[in-house]
């Protein structure tokens, strides 16, 4: 049993150090460099496959005491979610130039890949669209934007390797979650819940398809 004083001291130390610097993004506590190149991935402590954003929220909850639900229910750029987005910008910059290496080894990672693939081809909504309607063929575009063919390594790397990005037309920084949210909006699907399994599964699918592509984050988009 720990002496009471030691326990108290430890908790004071933890309180004084309630920063994200001990956050484990998959490569050990506090390691930022290269972390986003290997996300999403399975985490033992949560027994979940997590993407960068859901993992940052876990750290904010466990290390700092923030309410995860509040962040999930807030809109983009609202409340504590805004801090998550800024931390995303910081973390993804530290993987710039590295190779995409999203793992599909753990059974839960394999499960998420399969779910992501299913979600990608799932057709529905008022316009009878799927992700694949726009992103499964070469040479498609929306207005002047070339659309990457995500079913192929090169195209997947073009999509996955350039998000998160600063979006010039809206004048703000968009995380991968926000990008996926907007894909669903354009398909007129119901809005996905922030960091829900389907959004993470889509990232696993895209990331695995994009294997060995180069990370150019944060990207710069129209």
């Amino acid at each position, binding site marked *: 049993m720990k002496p009471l004083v030691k326990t108290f001291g430890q908790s*004071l130390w*933890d*309180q*004084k*150090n*309630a*920063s*994200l*610097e001990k*956050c484990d993004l998959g490569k050990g506590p506090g390691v*930022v460099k290269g972390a986003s190149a290997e996300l999403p991935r399975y985490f033992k402590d949560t027994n979940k496959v997590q993407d960068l954003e859901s993992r940052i929220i876990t750290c*904010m909850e466990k*290390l*700092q*005491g*923030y309410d995860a639900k509040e962040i999930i229910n807030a809109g983009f750029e609202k409340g504590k979610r805004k*801090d998550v*987005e*800024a*931390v*995303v*910008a*910081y*973390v993804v*910059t530290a993987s710039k130039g590295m190779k995409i290496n999203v793992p599909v080894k753990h059974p839960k990672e394999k499960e998420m890949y399969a779910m992501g693939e299913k979600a990608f081809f799932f057709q529905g909504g008022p316009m009878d669209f799927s992700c694949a309607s726009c992103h499964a063929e070469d040479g498609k*575009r929306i207005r*002047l*934007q*070339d659309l990457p063919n995500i079913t192929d390594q090169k195209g997947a790397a073009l999509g996955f390797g350039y998000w*998160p*990005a*600063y979006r*010039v037309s809206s*004048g703000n*920084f968009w995380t991968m979650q926000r990008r996926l949210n907007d894909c669903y909006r354009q398909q007129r699907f119901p809005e996905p819940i922030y960091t829900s399994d389907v959004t993470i599964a889509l990232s696993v699918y895209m990331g695995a398809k994009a294997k060995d592509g180069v990370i150019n984050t*944060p*990207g*710069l988009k*129209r």
Partner: protein
Amino acid sequence: MKKAMNSALLVSLSMMAGLAMAQSATDDIAKYREMIADGNPAELYEAAGEDIWSKPMGPKKCIA
């Protein structure tokens, strides 16, 4: 003289338009991206994020 200059200007303008048409709009977007690539405003978010990463905060932070 003025007329000749005007028509010369017109010819060169239409040539420029022809050149622009030959390129696809995506080439122009790529050029535009290259032009502003040095100053990606995402850097501002990155700097803010680094600060948030290292600063103790939240309900678990000791006030004393």
